[in-house]
């Protein structure tokens, strides 16, 4: 068990390395390949009217003339040892793990990200609870009553659900529930849970439901397919022959086996969402990590994007690790080694 976790963590470090290298390459190598010079890169971070001297100074300050490996080394050094930054009036120390300073706002990246984390956490976890409960329940009932009216309707809705982009359902639900009916608060108005739980839930309810609907649709389809397969297994017949109550057969024998693939997908989905529910946050203008990422990319702000991709990758890795550990709980046949 311990060796397993250590091995997984080692793999995680490799992955983070690859993610950071790729991000760097996207921002420095790809524009070079596309024919941009260091000055062209720097000109993105100065005002339109700036002359070549200003651009040259900016490129020097941001270290764009250095070889890409040196630039990357500087980033890694900041991550482990922290960096000192001379910002004019004095020297500021950014302690490790330092994700650097934004090219545009000059703010350190990590505190910015931590500020936005609660928004994304609230959004993703709240939606996850809803979609897991409704998606799995709908899938189980559909599989048990295969061909029934419930099955047809819920699978029809689920198919529609996986075919609808969230930036469409999001706008439509905003138009109906907020503007026409006035049922929910202003989504963009983020209120922390600790400050006012009721307003927090009220403002988030629309993003939760729209996001959960999208995922619940996929989970219902997945659970139904899995349950159909499991319930035709011999051990289900054995369980029934033993005279076990149907409830036990369905929940303990059927659902338990079906949950393994559902959990795998859940790990991937939740991990991806925690690293920024990009589309949902953009649609509802929620100030979370996903919106931060979109804004950072819009500004070509490498340190910010780097921070987001690393945080996102960490979430994906953690979520997958937890899911793999949960396997052993759900499925006794799984041994971690």
């Amino acid at each position, binding site marked *: 068990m311990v060796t397993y976790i250590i091995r997984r963590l080692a793999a995680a470090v490799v992955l983070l390395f690859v993610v950071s290298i790729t991000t760097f390459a996207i921002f420095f190598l790809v524009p070079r390949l596309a024919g941009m010079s260091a000055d062209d890169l720097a000109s993105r971070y100065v005002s339109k009217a700036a002359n070549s001297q200003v651009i040259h100074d900016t490129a020097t300050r941001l270290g764009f003339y250095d070889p890409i490996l040196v630039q990357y080394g500087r980033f890694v050094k900041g991550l482990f040892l922290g960096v000192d930054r001379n910002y004019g009036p004095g020297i500021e120390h950014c302690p490790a793990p330092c994700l650097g300073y934004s090219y545009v706002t000059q703010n350190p990246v990590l505190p910015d990200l931590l500020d936005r984390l609660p928004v994304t956490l609230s959004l993703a976890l709240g939606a996850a609870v809803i979609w897991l409960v409704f998606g799995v329940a709908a899938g189980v009932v559909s599989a048990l009553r295969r061909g029934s009216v419930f099955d047809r309707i819920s699978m029809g809705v689920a198919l529609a659900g996986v*075919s609808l*982009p969230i930036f469409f359902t999001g706008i439509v639900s905003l138009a109906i529930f907020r503007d026409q009916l006035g049922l929910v608060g202003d989504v963009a108005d983020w209120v922390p849970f600790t400050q006012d739980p009721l307003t927090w839930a009220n403002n988030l309810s629309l993003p939760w439901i729209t996001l959960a609907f999208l995922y619940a649709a996929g989970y219902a389809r997945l659970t139904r397919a899995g349950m159909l397969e499991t319930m035709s297994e011999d051990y289900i017949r054995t369980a029934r022959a033993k005279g076990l109550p149907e409830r036990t057969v369905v929940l303990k024998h059927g659902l338990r086996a079906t949950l393994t693939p559902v959990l795998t997908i859940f790990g991937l989905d939740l991990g991806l969402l925690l690293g920024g529910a990009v589309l949902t946050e953009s649609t509802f203008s929620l100030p979370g990590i996903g919106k931060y990422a979109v804004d950072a990319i819009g500004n070509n702000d490498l340190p910010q994007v780097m921070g987001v991709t690393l945080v996102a990758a960490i979430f994906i890795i953690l979520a997958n690790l937890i899911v793999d550990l949960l396997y052993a709980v759900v499925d006794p046949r799984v041994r971690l080694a």
Partner: protein
Amino acid sequence: MTAPLDVTGSQSEAPPEVVLEGAGRQAIQGRSLGRIAWMRLKRDKVAMTGAAVVIILILVAVFAPLLVSWLGHPPAEWHREKIDPAIQAPIGAFGGISRDFLFGVEPTTGRDLFSRVLYGARISLLIAFFATLLCVLLGTVMGMIAGFFGGWVDAIISRLMDIFLAFPLLVFALALAGVIPDKAFGLSGDALRISLLVFIIGFFNWPYIGRIIRGQTLSLREREFVDAARSLGARNHSILFREILPNLLAPVLVYSTLLIPSNILFEAALSFLGVGVRPPTPTWGGMLADAVHNYDVAPNYMIFPGLAIFITVLSFNLFGDGLRDAFDPKSR
């Protein structure tokens, strides 16, 4: 989605010479497994409806200029006379729908929404098709190599796929689409953006199909007809292309059909986030991004592009589901 495709079940019980023949020329044309599946598919009314809508959509996209010249106005033509200057909103009910402007007009500019949605279909389908082609090509080649050769080759490719699956893909795709200047690699304008999007979507999605193909190849490799071919002296490449590839056609076909709708959604998402094909070229995602700001004065601006995405993706999904069921009736 998770159910394995047992496409070769009927062949394994046939005498070996039939198996060998089935893996030959005919199968490469996609017929050997087709008959039964096609008969099942024909009986599946829902899937056939999906297929019909898909065909209509493709025709509409191909003949968009013709349809627009007949029923609408050029997509970039401004009609300020249709806009109420005080609120920059279309004049008339529901975004100014009339016989002249079937879907109404766009706020502020007064461009014909009907023709913009139609032209949007061209971009959407074009990118989704080519991106899917790239995904499937990469995924099949990598999956086959990993599954067939095993050992360290498999280890490297499988790790690579794991890494891809653990990437925050949308953020990377956004970053990549965002950093490319307007002129690069000898291309510019729409041609550059379209090929860029095809590359990004195709490149980031191949591991999903790669994993499936790897699994299928792993199990096919152990089958008797591969042993038979090997004992007849067949080399690796001829086993790969003549024995294994034909047996992979069914899963490749099914997953390609199911990948197209998810790639349509991916393209729409990138356009929605502002890194798709650049305006004034119309894209569905781009229209929805604009609609966020003025759906209250022009609901048509939100409804029509949204419905276009929905109908396209839904009909591809219906057809894809039907196709999968036709090849694997157990999954029903």
